[in-house]
């Protein structure tokens, strides 16, 4: 009733045009997202219930791919390897925070060091992987040459199942250091100085100032880094594929995305690959949700 009595205010032409322009701006990325992310995402869910070799039409096989995943030792192992690589995340956080603290001081050459640590971040991952592959060469590699200087006979990093994962972790930490450092640096610079001054007046040691002011103040950045690193880490692929193209000795370096890719493109099992990708997606979603839950609970406690 009110709809008939209350004439909607006539929008001006300018107003409508602006809306149209705005909508078209939004439409571009939205269409891109729908076409290139949501579309394939939905299709892969469908594909995960099919037997599909990508050459002929998929045939529906229900849950068979999921059953297969749970009895496939390579799936379990590559998933395990992938989570093993995540040991690098806390290491990377600690090192990058330490670096950020160092870079936050006034010292000569600060800008130079900040840039140097950022170089790996902007370098191509493929190129960096090839360089590290050489560096890890058992005989002529830079890593073992350096170790030899201090009298250590280094292993053949990428060919030994005991060292291949640590080798890849070291490289991943090195590669990601600059990015986390930069974020921490920004966070450190926005910590109010007054907090430190007050703590100093109260006689707090530098140790206590770090743990009770700095660390809590950069906590949002830590949270952001942990969440994004886990999501990115679960998709580790390029360096694995370049540095250990057969999945490493006894499958010890194969990551889950690498195995998915192999199943899809080498073993003509796109359906099975899709099922594993869906499982990975669910797992990452659950972990992320859990992190947000923990985070929300912790910050709530902090306020109280």
């Amino acid at each position: 009733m009110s709809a008939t009595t209350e004439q909607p205010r006539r929008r001006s032409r300018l107003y409508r045009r602006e809306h149209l322009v705005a909508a078209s701006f939004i439409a571009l990325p939205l269409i891109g997202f729908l076409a290139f992310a949501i579309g394939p995402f939905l299709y892969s869910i469908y594909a995960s219930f099919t037997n599909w070799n990508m050459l002929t039409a998929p045939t529906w096989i229900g849950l068979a791919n999921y059953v297969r995943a749970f009895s496939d030792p390579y799936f379990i192992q590559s998933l395990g390897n992938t989570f093993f690589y995540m040991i690098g995340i806390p290491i990377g956080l600690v090192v990058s925070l330490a670096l950020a603290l160092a870079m936050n001081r006034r010292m000569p050459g600060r800008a130079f060091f900040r840039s140097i640590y950022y170089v790996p971040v902007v370098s191509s991952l493929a190129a960096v992987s090839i360089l590290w592959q050489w560096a890890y060469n058992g005989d002529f590699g830079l890593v073992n040459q350096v170790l030899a200087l201090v009298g250590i006979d280094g292993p053949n990093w990428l060919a030994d199942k005991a060292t291949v994962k640590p080798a890849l972790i070291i490289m991943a930490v090195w590669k990601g250091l600059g990015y986390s450092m930069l974020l921490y640096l920004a966070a450190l610079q926005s910590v109010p100085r007054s907090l430190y001054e007050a703590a100093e007046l109260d006689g707090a040691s530098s140790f206590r100032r770090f743990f009770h002011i700095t660390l809590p103040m950069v906590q949002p950045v830590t949270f952001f880094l942990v969440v994004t690193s886990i999501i990115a880490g679960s998709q580790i692929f390029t360096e694995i594929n370049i540095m250990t193209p057969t999945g490493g000795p006894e499958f010890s370096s194969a990551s889950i995305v690498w195995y998915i890719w192999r199943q899809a493109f080498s073993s003509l099992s796109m359906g099975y690959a899709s099922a594993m990708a869906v499982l990975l997606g669910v797992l990452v979603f659950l972990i992320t949700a859990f992190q947000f839950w923990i985070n929300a609970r912790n910050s709530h406690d902090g306020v109280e």
Partner: protein
Amino acid sequence: MMGSISRRTLLAGTGIAAMATGLAACGADGTNNGNSGESSGSSTTGGGGAGVELTYMFRGGEDERKAYDQAIAAFEEQTGAKVKVIVTDADQYRTKLQAAITGGQVPDVFYLEQGSVMAFAKTGVVKDITGDIEAAGLDVSKVWKYGVDSYRFDGTRVGQGAIYGLPKDVGPFSFGYNKTMFEELGIPLPDKDKPYTWAEFRDVAKQLTSPEDERWGTGLNVAWNLQAWVWSNGGDWADEERRTVTIDTPEFAEALQDFADIQIIDGSTPSIEQAQTMDTYQRWMRGQIGFFPVGPWDVSTYQGLDFEWDLIPYPVGKTGETATWLGSLGISVSNSTEHAELATQLAMYLSADEECQRSLYQAGIQIPNLVDMAKGEYLEAEGAPANKEEFIQIAEDYGRALPAAATWTPEWYDDFWVGIQPVLDGEVTAADYVAQLQPQMQAKLDAANMDAGI
């Protein structure tokens, strides 16, 4: 030109409307370039492919591109068609091709890996070009039999039946030795016609080895060299029909153990882990390794080495027959192409054009596909290896396809290598390894055969 395929025979009888003008253009080959290309495309004097654009997708290095550019230019000149070339990295080729197939954008002509023949032929991605080849008057017997047979499929087995591709190359994986090292140590040179027995080989390898002098008998990557041991001992990964995994036979286990013992017992190789890395390759190039595999694609690099080397047959197991594998890559035509005849013609050019083949072998990356050229000018050509004959014998006589070349997917075969390291390290015996692995590989081979519907 005699005895091999000239451009004229390639074109003759293709049944295309402008065959006569095609031959006319052929007569003008190289003398009147201004008459061909785009201008001829619009005129009535153009070849049968005027106005047509074909896509050709492949992977390869600089030398291959150069050789194919020549062949493609000649093809374009003859037919008036245009060829759009898509080159990818070796790593990305398979993924890109698969994406193109799924997206319904299959290139007209493209590389086909041996291991994909069954899958691609059975699902109708690649075209049966048997008829086109006959119509074009190409005598396939001029190309290595193995090369053509690799792309035959009869509905259940690869290696027989209709032709689904022509070889881009055949790749004999031969065995080499560092001649200079032998001479310096005063060790009698190996005989190129009489292979070592395993015992002799291990003995010589031990004599060559002296770690203090950075010198080792050999250093063989298991994934590419074990075949020679296993086959020569009468074993194989699977039966002829590719139904039963046969790694758990005594011959197989014996071969694997002997291979491992070169390292474990004799210590004739640099170190335990290095079998899986490129290290021995670098050592070979530095002249520190006595025996090392050599493929035709290595020749251009190895010609620059500062020691003399040559080819010999692989050492022999109890059959007394030397063995090794012979790879190949194919050139196929899409089943969905709108220009099947032209596309087949292009494939034939790339596979069997004389000029193209000459430039490829001269670049030191492959042996010629044309049997007569290989046995003629290639054998007489200057440059290492002196015993080029070994490559020819492998291609013609004793080379075999890798086990997964004729199955639906390579997954069953790949599994063999995943856990091989403990055997090479001496932690697990070969017999235990193959016995424990057989059921797992059998299950995967069964699954592959089931997926293939054979």
